[in-house]
């Protein structure tokens, strides 16, 4: 029986249309097609970080999470798969993308499958995805597909890019349909570090049977 998957595209592209968004959309399209061949459906939501730029900056300097940002966090919370796409500036991912992911709770994206994508004006930036972005997504305990996507100006005329998009999309579909996230979250959610109210405000379980809770109720430090 087919399942419905929620795919979230996070784009740090700034122009409209942007090649960064275009790259992500190509992935999303292939993910939908490949999932469809397996009788699954995919609903895609796009988070344009450009529209969140002010709230991202506010959150960084004042811990205040604005309504658009809260909405984006709730969207990611529900995601079965994520495509994160960014332009490369000065040999690194756009600060808009890294800032956004730095604001998120550490446990928001645990075990979620991710495709990473970057665009640049020169092929010299080709290793930004593998050398820099993977570390951030590893910290967030996401599972990033083996194929990284990178498109410099000349790649748009090269069929090799399409092949890599197909590869990455298939890898994402394989991870989404495997139930990896569900298994990890169902069976070992409690073994990751959480704070009260983390995971985008959803982590609200209170374990009364802990050393600290016993200490709170007058007991010894244990």
């Amino acid at each position, binding site marked *: 029986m087919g399942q419905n998957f929620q795919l979230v595209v996070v784009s740090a592209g700034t122009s409209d249309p942007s090649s960064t968004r275009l790259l992500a959309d190509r992935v999303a399209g292939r993910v939908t097609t490949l999932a469809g061949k397996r009788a699954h459906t995919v609903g895609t939501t796009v988070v344009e970080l450009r529209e969140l730029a002010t709230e991202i900056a506010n959150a960084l300097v004042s811990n*205040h999470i*604005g309504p658009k940002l809260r909405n984006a966090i709730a969207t990611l919370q529900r995601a079965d798969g994520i495509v994160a796409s960014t332009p490369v500036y000065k040999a690194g991912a756009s600060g808009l993308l890294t800032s956004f992911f730095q604001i998120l709770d550490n446990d928001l994206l645990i075990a979620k499958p991710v495709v990473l994508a970057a665009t640049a004006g020169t092929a010299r930036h080709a290793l930004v995805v593998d050398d820099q972005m993977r570390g951030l997504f590893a910290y967030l305990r996401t599972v990033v597909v083996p194929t990284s996507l990178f498109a410099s100006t000349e790649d748009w005329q090269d069929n090799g890019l399409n092949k890599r998009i197909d590869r990455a999309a298939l890898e994402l579909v394989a991870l989404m349909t495997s139930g990896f996230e569900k298994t990890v979250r169902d069976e070992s959610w409690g073994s990751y570090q959480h704070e009260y*109210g983390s995971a985008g*405000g959803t982590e609200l379980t209170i374990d009364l049977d802990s050393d600290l809770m016993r*200490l*709170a109720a007058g007991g010894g*430090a244990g």
Partner: protein
Amino acid sequence: MQFGIFSVSDITRDPVSGETPSEAERIDAIVQIAEKAEEVGLDVFAIGEHHNPPFFSSAPTTLLSHIAAKTKKLIVSTATTLITTNDPVRIAEEYAMLQHLAKGRMDLMLGRGNTAPVYPWFGADIRQSLPLALENYNLLHRLWREDVVDWEGKFRTPLQGFTSTPRPLDDLPPFVWHGSIRTPEIAEQAAFYGDGFFANNIFWPKEHYIRLIEFYRQRYAHYGHGTEKQAIVGLGGQAYIAKRSQDAVKEFRPYFNEAPVYGHGPRMEDFMEQTPLSVGSPQEVIDKTLTFREHFGDYQRQMFLMDHAGLPLKTVLNQLDLLGEEVVPVLRKEIEARQDPETAKPPTHAGRVKDKYGDGPVRQPKPNANRGDNVTGGSPYQDSR
């Protein structure tokens, strides 16, 4: 319901005049602010505790005993007293002394403190902040209730036959609030002991501390201190008031824009819409404050942050006039009319003496004579066996 003001004790440049007050000026100002709070009919004045510039309040009990001496009805309190980096023995002694000098017109609020460098200045480790807070309070709780304490824990040297002096006024420990917005263990401890729980309520989204207050209420009832509605809850808030809404917005904006905590960040209008901050006419502040009990349930104490971000003394005093004369009297009336009759009364010394002793005699401990060794042993007071 009690209404009051709490101060962080920040010494902040006034962004309009460009002037930064000296420590001497700001300390003089805070005493005037506290006296004004009483004059305009507020119930509580609370001060924070900090151990680094640009804050002045490193010695809250000294300040609060001075304010208590200059006032008649005002309850002096803290927001917060650091239960992590202060030795609970010193907290027991200093606040019991304050309680005597203030004739019971005091309480205190405990917090952990989140400034990492402060911990090693006082020999503590921020990585142990939560167990340290919990253990320290377990000890503090006993020091105020048992004349002679034998104690051993993880974080300080053991105590053998220790008596914290003076004993609390009327042998009734000061009322304690536990401040937290996202630590269930702190809510649990407040509930276990039947103490108050305070949420600073400066930042929303408020949903997770609504749930934390609910948890505190459930646990308060679980431990048999009363019903969930009878649990003792306090909330913070912040306001800038002017007769006309547009004047409030115009006057406060430069202070908001450069405020230490949220300045250079969100637009003031967004912050007003999305957090408890009220900037407007007395009626607007009243309307917003009245929504708090809808979110958090009926509660006992509402505190306002009024003197931060470099607001000059004259402005703060004027704010207090408006708060005390035009906002709080209406809030008292409106809340009284809406409040669930089951709601607990706010904690006062007189009320708590009555709860403890009824009409019976109030214990007044008198020490035995010094035996010459400065160690009083197992029965230091004439009435202890």
